[in-house]
């Protein structure tokens, strides 16, 4: 029996062939090492994300999330929900808070859910994978499994917005959260705590609708990483990862920069440090290849 079990809410972007599929792969390998059992919520649906607002309205948005709660309670009773995607986590958690604080909203939601033959009782806790790692396992436990420290790799911890605000990880500051830097150090790499763009917004959905606005912000994020001598950027959020990684080419065209910095998930770093292969870490999933990590992943594990 696994050390820890959770109902898993991977979210749309983490699905096979989707923009964060590499996130999912690495998370699965990571959890294997850490002996954390994730059971996907059967037939889970989209959280609506923050960008859905124009059409979503209030109740429909909450109903979408409530459906996942209902399914989780029904199929995985007593388990907390873990999300890997910042938006999923935020959306679900926000719904949970609103429903707890408004009886009307709760009643309305229940009424709507009936249409899908579902119902919610207590509603499970909603956790982000990072919370699980830090709060349920702890750095010590995570560090135990490091067999291939990422020595000498300088990594900028880019936390972004939605894992950090408005809820954030308990005990962390909104303006200067340190957990990602701690994780970087935990895997034996070199953190950049003074990286001043660590909570700057990547532009979110505006990267699609108004690229120039989003890319202006992404430029600052990448530039500052370079200024601090980072070789790669690490993030806990799929949209951050995609936005910061895949537009570097366009930004170079727009601003005449020469950006080409890999953007990784914390899970990928951990898998490599845990002795996993490039494949386990889904390093092939990078648009901008993380050569240093590939090299390290190729090295034999010193046991």
């Amino acid at each position, binding site marked *: 029996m696994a050390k820890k079990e959770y109902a898993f809410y991977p979210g749309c972007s983490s699905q096979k062939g989707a923009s964060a599929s*590499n996130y999912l792969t690495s998370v699965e390998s990571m959890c294997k090492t850490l002996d954390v059992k994730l059971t996907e919520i059967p037939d889970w649906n989209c959280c609506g994300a923050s960008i*859905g607002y124009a059409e979503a309205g209030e109740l*429909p948005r909450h109903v979408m999330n409530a*459906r996942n709660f209902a399914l989780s309670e029904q199929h995985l009773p007593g388990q907390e929900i873990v999300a890997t995607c910042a938006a999923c986590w935020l959306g679900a958690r926000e719904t949970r808070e609103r429903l707890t604080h408004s009886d009307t909203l709760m009643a309305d939601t229940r009424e709507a859910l009936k*249409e*899908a033959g579902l119902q919610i009782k207590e509603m499970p806790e909603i956790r982000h994978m990072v919370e699980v790692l830090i709060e349920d396992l702890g750095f010590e436990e995570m560090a135990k499994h490091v067999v291939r420290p990422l020595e000498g790799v300088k990594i900028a911890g880019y936390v972004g*917005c939605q894992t950090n*605000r408005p809820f954030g990880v308990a005990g962390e500051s909104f303006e200067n959260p340190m957990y990602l830097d701690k994780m970087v150090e935990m895997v034996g790499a070199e953190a950049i705590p003074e990286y001043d763009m660590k909570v700057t917004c990547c532009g979110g959905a*505006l990267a*699609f609708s108004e690229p120039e606005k989003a890319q202006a912000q992404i430029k600052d994020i990448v530039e500052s990483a370079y200024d601090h001598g980072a070789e790669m950027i690490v993030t806990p959020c799929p949209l951050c990862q995609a936005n910061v990684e895949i537009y570097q080419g366009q930004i170079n065209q727009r601003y005449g920069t020469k950006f080409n910095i890999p953007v990784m998930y914390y899970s990928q770093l951990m898998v490599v440090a845990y002795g996993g292969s490039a494949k386990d870490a889904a390093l092939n999933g990078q648009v901008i290849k993380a050569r240093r990590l590939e090299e390290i992943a190729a090295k034999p594990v010193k046991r």
Partner: protein
Amino acid sequence: MSANTAVAEKYRNNFLKEIEEQVEMGDWVKMCMQCGVCSGSCPTNFQSAWEHPPQELFMMIRAGKREEVLTSSSMWNCTSCYNCIVRCPRKLPITHIMHGIAEYAHRLGMAPKLQPTRFFSGLFWKNATKTGRVNELKLSMGLYFKDGLGAGIKEGMKMKDVALGLMKAKRLNPFEIIKGHACKDQKGIQAMLKKAYEIERSRKAAKVAG
């Protein structure tokens, strides 16, 4: 526009009350003390200025500037970074108010037609709720082709490299065009959402009726 004029008539010069009753979290607008932290915290406001930053929108609402507010492009600049929310000394849920006003303007059909984020936002929601899960390929295509085929191809070409990169990395699946991810119980989802909209509409209507 009839829906619009109806409410407008009902509220006459009390736009604030209209916002309080029709907009998600709208009842917080009156609590603003005009310190400006929200406006100063907004990243897009410093990349390319908002027409009216949040705190100014709140003042305009109190001043009854209905037309200017609802037709403004401002709210659509929100990236949902939540900086304003965590810094507001009055704890106003500003991000949600921005979304709320945008949604209301959109509902009344007063939001700027060509505002790309307005379009994308709607597109995203439809895309996500159609099958219960987002189809990223259709989502981007939909966005590029919003202004017709020609423009679509042009936009698409611009994004060619990005798309290719993602495909190489197996993070964009061309076959999603035919068959993408989807929930099994789509009927249930549709029914559930239909109901949700009904309830929400009736509640807001009830308020208009007073």
